[in-house]
């Protein structure tokens, strides 16, 4: 990816050396490791939720440092507001969107038809989700489920999918300063209860923790008629699904909603100034509408600026393949991804709680109360 991009680089004085470090989890570890050992990368694409950690570790510089001309200011304002939420702290912009996403719902149109449902109408409310999910759940004569109605993965980082449920129930998990969390808010508990009910009460969702990695595969194998996963899987599913499928916004309850996700571009503090400046230029180049559009087409991630959607490439693509626009259309309902100080640890507390609830080890209330207690303890030094 970056190889292709850098071969088209505009400024011949800038040489961009791409270092592939793997998933976001590995990249943040690598970047901080490198920073702590005195050899930081110049720039990196990291999860937008790592912003607090990066600031606490004094690893990054805000973009504002480089924004000097009017054109620069325009550029800073050109992104979708939803994507700027995680990057802006203390009135400074610390990271700019590069590869962003939302959760979307993929659904199996053929399964819909077989169940007597309109293949063009995905569920739009929680009630519809349960109704349609029930019709879509098929069992064989011995009672084993051959096709689930809905599957929402919960391995690794269930908090992200959970934010779909909470936002739809009008609950917010953390404050914008990243210093307090509200895991045990009543509406949050309701959201978890609903997710648990899908498998425990309504029996339209697989039991236990569902693997993130195999969910797209599960969908394509026909194991689940509807799945929630990142829009970044769009191109993969489009290429490999043996049936007609649709993409829809997540169904809502009190409101519609999804978290944003994905990576921001950060510039590291201890890199030499000239390299920082070059990184800034590179960032601007990377996020130009044409480039952003191409990246979106290639992967399914959301192009980071409205301008990208006006480019001929993306317009044609969206014309042929309307599902490409769903994630973008969901943006007005999107909220910031959960992010606090000591983010990894606080998120782990929530993840553990969610998995406890989904496996029936704890009740929704107990799971979230415990998570809240742990998170509060962790955040105390930051208040």
């Amino acid at each position, binding site marked *: 990816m970056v190889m292709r991009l850098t071969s088209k680089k505009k400024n011949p004085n800038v040489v961009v050396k791409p270092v592939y470090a793997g998933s976001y*989890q590995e990249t943040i*570890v690598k970047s*901080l*490791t490198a920073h702590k050992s005195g050899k930081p990368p110049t720039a990196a694409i990291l999860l937008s939720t790592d912003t607090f950690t990066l600031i606490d*570790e004094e690893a990054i510089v805000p973009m504002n440092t480089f924004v000097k001309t009017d054109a620069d200011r325009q550029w800073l304002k050109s992104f979708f507001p939803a994507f700027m939420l995680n990057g802006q702290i203390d009135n400074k912009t610390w990271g700019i969107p590069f590869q962003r996403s939302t959760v979307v719902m993929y659904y199996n149109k053929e399964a819909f038809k077989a169940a007597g449902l309109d293949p063009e109408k995905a569920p739009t409310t929680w009630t519809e989700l349960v109704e349609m999910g029930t019709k879509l759940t098929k069992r064989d004569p*011995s009672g*084993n489920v051959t096709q689930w109605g809905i599957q929402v993965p*919960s*391995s*690794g980082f269930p908090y992200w999918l959970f934010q779909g449920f909470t936002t739809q129930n009008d609950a917010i998990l953390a404050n914008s300063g990243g210093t307090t969390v509200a895991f045990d808010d009543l509406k949050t508990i309701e959201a978890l209860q609903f997710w648990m009910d899908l498998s425990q009460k309504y029996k339209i969702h*697989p*039991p*236990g*923790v*569902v*693997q993130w*990695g*195999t969910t797209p595969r*599960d969908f394509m*194998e026909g*194991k689940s008629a509807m799945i929630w996963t990142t829009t970044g899987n769009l191109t993969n599913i489009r290429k490999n699904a043996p049936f007609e499928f649709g993409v829809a916004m997540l169904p809502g309850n009190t409101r519609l909603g999804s978290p944003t996700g994905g990576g921001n571009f950060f510039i590291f503090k201890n890199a030499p100034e000239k390299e920082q400046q070059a990184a800034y230029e590179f960032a601007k180049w990377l996020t130009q509408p044409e480039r952003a559009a191409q990246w979106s087409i290639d992967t399914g991630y959301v192009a980071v600026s409205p301008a990208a959607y006006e480019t001929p490439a993306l317009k044609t693509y969206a014309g042929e393949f309307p599902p490409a626009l769903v994630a973008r259309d969901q943006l007005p309902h999107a909220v910031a991804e959960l992010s606090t100080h*000591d983010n*990894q*640890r606080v998120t*782990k507390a929530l*993840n*553990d*709680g969610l*998995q*406890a609830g*989904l*496996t029936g*080890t704890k009740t929704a209330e107990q799971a979230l109360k415990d998570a809240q207690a742990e998170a509060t303890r962790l955040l105390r*030094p930051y208040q």
Partner: protein
Amino acid sequence: MTPTSSHVQAYLLLLPAFVFLVGFTHYPAIGTLIDSVMLALRGGRAPAFVGLDNYQAMIQDPVFWKSATNNLWFALATIPASMAISIVMALWVNEKIAGRQFLRMSYFLPTVMPMIAVANIWIFFYTPDYGLINQVLQLVGIKSQNFLGDPNLALMSVTIVAIWKEAGFFMIFYLAALQTLSPSFREAAQIEGASRWYFFWRIQWPLLMPTTIFVLVNALINSVRMVDHIFVMTNGGPNNASSLLLFYLYEVGFKFWDRGYASTLTVVLLAILAIAGLMQFFLLDRKTHYR
């Protein structure tokens, strides 16, 4: 050679190796001990003596206890199972059995494959519904199990992978030992009309004791060390059901950047290994009296 110069020569010979040994084993061990009572929990600016604070936090940490008890079960399962299987493998391969070469190769195969790679394949085996094991289970009428996503099954699932990985390696040691046993034992047993079981239990097993101890120690070390597959398969989940101590240590040290607490966890690991080492020492003393 005069006595003094031979002393000096010995020290010189030992020096290079010991630089590395001390540098990466003894020195960091002591350093870790110091770190565990020095640094504040949340990597503060300058280290300060905090006494047993870190240890207190650890005792109150449910994830630590979960990882520790998991590790205990993991050890209790992998050590006897892999040892027993490896002896059986060695005994089988040692005989005139059809396809001996193939058998030996198959048993040893897991050792040469990197755990991190094979773990992905095991994910397929464990996948609900269309995963290999579940396909077989469903054929015989058992419901599909969520091996990696059910807290009651996750630890067992990763344990099986560990046993599979190391049994073949231990087999080689037993095989070598079996092949050095004097054939006169077998002849004597034949003349006496001994059964296979008798031959094994009364003759081979005691003679294999040194190997058994060697394998036991290795299995014990592995039960602390083998965490690669957890990274890929469960990430310690669900809800820490498959978290092991070394894995948790990595998370605390390299994901949470909490050096003080990570050092504390390391001290626990060191203590466990120290006890194991002492056990080995005493066992070795008692049981190997054949030489």
